[in-house]
């Protein structure tokens, strides 16, 4: 998967490039709007991460030009401006998603993966990781032969972690995706919920699946 980052702030661009490369993406970088537009329209990218405030050509103009040639190109807006009008304008001009600086890299990564999965997802009805199997339609989960007795929220949390297996999900993102909490809240709630889920999913078994990544969040994977 090839990603283009159009960002003039050197340090931001450098860590994004590093982080995304380490997550398995091929990453190109442009440091101004003109260069970004040229690269975006002359190479094949799966996703463009676009800053709004750019030298030479601003993000609004770049996205309009990109959309003229590639109506289906996925674009993620990245900006320090966070008033609603900007958000609305960005989405109206055809941005697929919008992230406000400062953001956690894990959150960006999650959104990038969501965008790239869009359209190509095989929305499966069941998931299985190691001996964990989840039947999304029937709302059932089990490890080996043992049926897990989960509350609806615990089930939703497990499904989220399992669907994104291998990805570290931040507390903020989990709160947003499971409880729809899209404001700054007490994320200790997420820790409590994960702890309870672990009691049911991991505690009775030797092979632990849910791991905490200190300072970043949680990940479900076979280790």
């Amino acid at each position, binding site marked *: 998967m090839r990603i283009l980052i159009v960002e003039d702030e050197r340090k931001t661009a450098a860590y994004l490039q590093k982080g995304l490369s380490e997550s398995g993406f091929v990453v190109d970088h442009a440091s101004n709007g003109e260069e970004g537009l040229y690269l975006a329209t002359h190479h094949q990218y799966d996703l463009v991460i676009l800053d709004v405030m750019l030298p030479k050509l601003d993000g609004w103009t770049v996205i309009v030009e990109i959309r003229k040639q590639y109506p289906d190109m996925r674009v993620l807006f990245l900006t320090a401006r*966070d*008033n*609603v009008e900007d958000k609305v304008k960005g989405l109206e001009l055809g941005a697929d998603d919008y992230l406000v600086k*400062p953001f*956690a890299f894990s959150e960006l990564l999650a959104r990038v993966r969501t965008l790239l999965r869009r359209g190509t997802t095989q929305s499966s009805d069941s998931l299985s990781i190691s001996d964990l199997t989840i039947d999304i339609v029937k709302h059932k989960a089990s490890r080996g032969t043992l049926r897990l007795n989960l509350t609806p*929220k615990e089930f939703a949390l497990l499904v989220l972690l399992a669907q994104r297996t291998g990805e570290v999900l931040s507390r903020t993102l989990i*709160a947003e995706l499971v*409880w*729809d*909490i*899209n*404001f*700054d*809240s*007490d994320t*200790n*709630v997420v820790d*409590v*919920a994960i*702890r*309870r889920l672990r009691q049911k999913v991991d505690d009775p078994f030797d092979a632990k699946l849910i791991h905490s990544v*200190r*300072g*970043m969040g949680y990940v479900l994977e076979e280790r």
Partner: protein
Amino acid sequence: MTFFYSLSGFILLSVIALFLYWVTINILYKADYQFLSDEVDTVQYILHNKAYNVSALKQAVIDTPSERNGSIYRYYIRVSDDKGQLIIATPGMESILAVSKAAATNTTDLLAKKRYWWYENNDTNYLVIQSPVQLGIKNNFGKIQIALDISYQHKVVSDRKKLGIALLAGTILVLFLGFFIAHRGMRSLYVLTETAKMITATSLHQRIDPKSWPTELGTLGIAFNQMLDRIESSFIRLKQFSSDLSHELRIPINNLIGETEITLSRAHSIDEYQQVLTSNLEELQRISQLIESMLFLSRAENPQLDIHKTLLNVHEEIAFVFDYYQTMAEEKNIRISYEGNGQLLGNSIMFRRMISNVLSNSLNYTPPGGTIHFSIIESDKDTLHIIASDNGIGIPEEHLPKIFDRFYRVDSSRSPQPGGTGLGLAIVKSIVELHSGTISITSQAEKGTALFFSFSK
């Protein structure tokens, strides 16, 4: 200012003076002209109709003093025939107006206009009338001359000097009055100017005393003071805010710098690096959260902020937040509940954030086994109340007035949540205010705390 006051005063005085002067002249002389004209008519009548009866004329005109308005008119009369022969005259007439000085008259023209002229003799002023007269019924013509002593009127009228002096005195008076009025008004403005000049960021406490000012300027003075009050209080808040902010940021940033410097000073194991980076990450996340909260507060203070509002079902909004905190409450063994219904025009995300902050606070300060209860009360169609109460550790009374201030912490040692920014309740208050509501708090140490929200719809 003084000049314009005086100029307008002077113009006003002059106009009045000239008008009065003109009216006086008119009244005085009109009466005199009328009198002379009447006298001539009488003489003509006597000489014409009474068949040239000189003795009747003498009796009627010369011997009887003519009175009008109670004052005696001093006048002299002379009648002569067409050859210049004197017929009758008031004694002394010749000395006043010599025959030779009388104007020539075309005696045949009976209808000729009466002629008037001014005449001065021995410091006495006379108004003279000369008119032809028919003597008897025959075609004998003569002329009448009557001189009226108008010295008094003339004195009054011609005494322009006095008028000038009065005008000058008036003007000087106006000048002083104008100067006084202008000075009085200007002094207030001067004080205002001087005060305004002296005001800088460090001397915002300066005020003016508008009590002694003229009413019109008093309002300005009061408004000026009120403006300073407002600026000063925002300034104090801003200063407090930025000093708090730098304090809040300095500690974590110093920690970060110190930790990073020590780590870089010599080689460490990968595990140690990881640990430092993780610790830094946590600290940075806290700073980031702090900045996000600060931005929220500063935006909420912007009066131009236009938040998107919809009609909220308050019960559902609270249920939504409770759903999120339910597991945590269970974990802490705190019973959380809510009741009541109501609707409110508001911003859903902000409203939830407000409820979330309050509930999260309560959960942090309520010991296991405690209860937290939210009541929604729609007392009437226009007001919605929310009461959030807990039986937690409470807040000592002396802290209550400042509890909604930014970064205010009752006691830093008793905060069980090190990640807290100290902005939670400040954000709650600003959200309440964005919804045109009010918030108040009551609390008793060791008994619990209750927050009262009041929204007018």
